[in-house]
């Protein structure tokens, strides 16, 4: 009935034997396969496994606070709600964007543009889709975790300018860092989505403002959801920056300009230090406008454009071009709006100095011994030089004038005669000593150098220097170009009798109350005799105090000294001059450079009013307002 349990091997089915051998070989090979992966390549795979789950996230540092000289806050931080999108959790990106677009009112096109920017960021990382989420929206999203499961909300510090448009050209503005800027920076301080100072103080002292980012080492799952925080390093707030600006004065001057609807640039400097007390370029802008993802401009235009393009093939690439255009046009638009400008006239405006240049001429002539204080020249309204009539601004002339009277009444004939006797290169040398025609190196970026021509300058263009060119320049015309900041430097140097100050906005930078950078007052002695300055200042004093061209700036007891300049836009020889000059854009630019008091001067200022009209009537009273405020304290 039964067969033996222990069967002899030869009775075994032959195929079974083969099968056993095959199985043996297979399992040996499997052992080696696992040996290879688990033991020989263990470290490699272990590293990859760690890389899967660990991530190091940046925590944005609050930017340093910006103060004026009295400790008033000009720029600070606020809490910003950031909407983070976890792309691993999104099922239908279109629906997701639609949802957010509906909630926040931002256009889908904008959202797509932002999304596109983060294309190369690994999907496991959440990306900041929107910044500046309103508190209402935060509550809405947070209370609907299933509807908005692909979103997360994070709190980050962001920039706030409590005074809005005040001092906008000093502060500058910030934008999100562009890919081009990211590539340019070899360090890894900045990442996509960070903001960076683009002009003004924000740019100048960016590396002090930015602080140090914190770090958060986390464990994440395959959807990028943070499961555990392993280690957290707090961010460090940026340094506190103190300016020499008196924000109260700044604001009052700005308001005066706005009230009178005047465009121009005004600067006030403390002559003890060279620190700028007020720096105005009107119109300004609102620094908040640049780094908020604000697509309110022309959303209708964009959507119309989108509809027009969407029907065409390859519309996506075309849309990208449109985005690029829009990004540019937004800036252009801001530049062209009447009361909105990124152009900082104070350091970037190129203007003829007009009669304020007579300061340079007077000093040059005195130093070169062409005149003495008693040299008299007869002005009868017109003089003939190089076979051409040259007019004084006063039709019937000033009669016999010496230097101080010529300055007081701004007599052109007197200075034409100096121009006849002075070489243009000599004039340029004195202009250069006083700070014209080159950057003053004031500490805000993008200053231009202006132009004081020399003979060689014209030769460069293969043009000849005509003697008449020098005559034009002797009253501040011709090819001369100065910026308001240079004019301020010139009058400051005169006030200090040859001590040329380094103009600056920064007072000090502090780190937790410890001063890490301080601007020490710096003066450069220029080789012009004190006697020349004294004589010049005698004239500048008369301009204001003895019924001169700036008599409207006079404040009794303050001893203001200054020089006006009225730079015509159209020639007086134009037959329609009388009629055209009443139109604003043909009205002359008005200059007034001044300082006070005469002895031991404390303050200097430059007033430049674009198309303001006569300097004595428009610019001089402005200076009066400023000095009144300065001395009344």
């Amino acid at each position, binding site marked *: 009935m*039964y067969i033996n349990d222990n069967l002899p091997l030869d009775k*075994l089915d032959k195929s079974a034997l083969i099968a056993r051998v095959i*199985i043996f070989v297979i399992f040996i090979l499997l052992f080696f396969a*696992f040996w290879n992966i688990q*033991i020989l390549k*263990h470290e490699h795979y272990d590293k990859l*496994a760690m890389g*899967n*789950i660990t991530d190091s996230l940046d925590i944005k540092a609050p930017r340093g606070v910006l103060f004026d000289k009295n400790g008033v806050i000009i720029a600070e931080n606020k809490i910003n709600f950031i909407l983070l999108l976890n792309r691993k959790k999104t099922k239908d990106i279109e629906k997701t964007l639609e949802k957010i677009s509906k909630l926040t009112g931002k256009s889908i096109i904008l959202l797509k543009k932002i999304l596109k920017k983060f294309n190369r960021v690994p999907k496991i990382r959440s990306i900041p889709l929107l910044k500046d989420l309103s508190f209402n929206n935060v509550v809405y999203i947070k209370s609907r975790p299933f509807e908005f499961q692909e979103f997360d909300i994070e709190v980050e510090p962001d920039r706030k300018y409590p005074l809005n448009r005040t001092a906008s050209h000093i502060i500058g503005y910030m934008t999100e860092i562009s890919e081009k800027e990211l590539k340019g920076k070899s360090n890894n301080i900045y990442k996509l989505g960070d903001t960076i100072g683009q002009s003004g103080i924000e740019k100048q002292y960016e590396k002090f403002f930015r602080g140090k980012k914190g770090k958060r080492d986390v*464990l994440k799952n395959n959807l990028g959801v943070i499961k555990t925080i392993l280690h957290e390093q707090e961010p460090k707030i940026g340094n506190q920056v103190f300016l020499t600006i008196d924000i109260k004065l700044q604001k009052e001057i700005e308001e005066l300009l706005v009230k009178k609807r005047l465009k121009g640039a005004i600067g006030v400097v403390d002559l003890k230090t060279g620190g700028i007390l007020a720096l105005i370029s009107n119109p300004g802008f609102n620094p908040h406008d640049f780094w908020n993802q604000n697509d309110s401009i022309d959303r209708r235009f964009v959507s119309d454009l989108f509809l027009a393009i969407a029907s065409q093939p390859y519309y996506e690439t075309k849309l990208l071009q449109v985005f690029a255009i829009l990004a540019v046009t937004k800036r252009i638009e801001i530049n062209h709006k009447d009361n909105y400008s990124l152009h900082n006239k104070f350091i970037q405006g190129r203007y003829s100095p007009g009669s304020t240049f007579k300061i340079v001429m007077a000093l040059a002539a005195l130093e070169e011994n062409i005149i003495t204080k008693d040299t008299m020249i007869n002005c009868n309204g017109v003089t003939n030089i190089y076979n051409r009539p040259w007019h004084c601004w006063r039709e019937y002339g000033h009669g016999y004038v010496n230097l101080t009277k010529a300055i007081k009444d701004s007599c052109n004939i007197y200075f034409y005669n100096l121009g006849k006797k002075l070489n243009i290169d000599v004039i340029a040398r004195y202009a250069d000593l006083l700070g014209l025609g080159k950057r003053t190196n004031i500490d805000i970026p993008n200053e231009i150098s202006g132009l004081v021509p020399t003979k060689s300058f014209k030769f460069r263009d293969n043009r000849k220097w005509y003697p008449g060119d020098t005559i034009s320049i002797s009253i501040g015309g011709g090819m001369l170009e100065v910026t308001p900041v240079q004019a301020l430097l010139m009058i400051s140097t005169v006030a200090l009798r040859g001590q040329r100050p380094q103009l600056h906005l920064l007072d000090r930078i502090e780190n937790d109350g410890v001063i890490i950078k301080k601007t020490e007052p710096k003066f450069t002695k220029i080789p012009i005799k004190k006697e020349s300055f004294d004589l010049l200042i005698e004239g500048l004093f008369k301009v204001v105090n003895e019924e001169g061209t700036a008599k409207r700036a006079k404040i009794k007891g303050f001893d203001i000294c200054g020089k006006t300049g009225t730079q015509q836009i159209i020639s007086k020889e134009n037959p329609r001059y009388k009629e055209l000059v009443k139109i604003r854009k043909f009205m002359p630019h008005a200059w007034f450079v001044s300082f006070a008091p005469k002895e031991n001067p404390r303050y200097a200022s430059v007033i430049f009013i674009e198309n303001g009209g006569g300097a004595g009537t428009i610019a001089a009273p402005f200076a009066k307002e400023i000095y009144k405020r300065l001395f009344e304290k």
Partner: protein
Amino acid sequence: MRDSIRFFDKITFFIILAISVGGVFLIYSASYSDTNTFFYKQLIWLIFSIIIFFIVFRIRTEIIFRYGVLLYIILIGILILQLVSGKVIAGTKSWVKFGFFSVQVSEFMKIALAIIIAKYISKINKIEWKELFMLGVIIGIPFVLIALQPDMGTASIFVSLFIITILLKGIKKSIVIFLIILVLLSSFFLWNYFLKPYQKDRITSFLNPELYSQSSGYQIIQSKIAIGAGGINGKGFLKGSQSKYKFLPTRHTDFIISLLGEEFGFLGISFFLILYFVFFYRQFTFFTENEEELNLVYLLLGLILFQFLINVLMSIGLIPILGLPLPFVSYGGSSLLGFFIIEGIIFKIRINSYINEF
């Protein structure tokens, strides 16, 4: 009855139990970070499968062979019904709902196919054109039906039955050449007209996983990372980061061996491999005179071996992802039940070979 106990292969049975229970623990780890109930379901299925195993073990093999064709026809009928009206679950129509639980018909089709092939080839000498045609029809019909669900993994297992048949019976050389040409031609047509994009992805990503690291190559890479990160000792039970943080895909089914590798390391893998080795080695010992029974055992064991190999080789990235569960270990009631039924039949035939039934 006493004989059944005496000749019952206790060692193999305990190995199967060890592998299955180990699988249940791995499933516990795989679903630990979720709140789902894979672990309990698998435990219930395991108990149920052991009961069925003993029921099958009591059935006489003649009955199995007698009703094999009927089972085959019924299952074909269900497959057709499914294709026409089936609901899609987890991307395929392979599930049939019976009250509170669902089963995958294809798991049982494997067994029915093995039975009728075993019966058929015991009557032939060698595979010639006529036999080739017959086998083509028998295997081809369920193959197409299941491939259409679509479940290429299970369908491909049917091909393994054909390969085992060839090994058992031998084949004419001209047919081999014909088959090679047929395979080349059909793969060309499959690739261009039939395969779904995700299936193509599986193949291309297998050939170059780094290129596809965000899509289907992702699975291969993550599986290898899990296994490699395990090292010698493994990360420890419930401590594998690839599994815990869900980087390892389908870690309770297709890639359960990767989970084992990560949490128990080379030692754990070696232990499992040894268990499987003894399992196969012991069972390839047959000396029955009954050709039908012998063929069936080879077909069934071959089935398990192929599925085991495909699953393991796929986990270490040596073959494309086919989506097949690891026998006795992976989560899935139908699969587990199917393998216990197979073992029930094999155990019964083994007893038969020891007992002379005159």
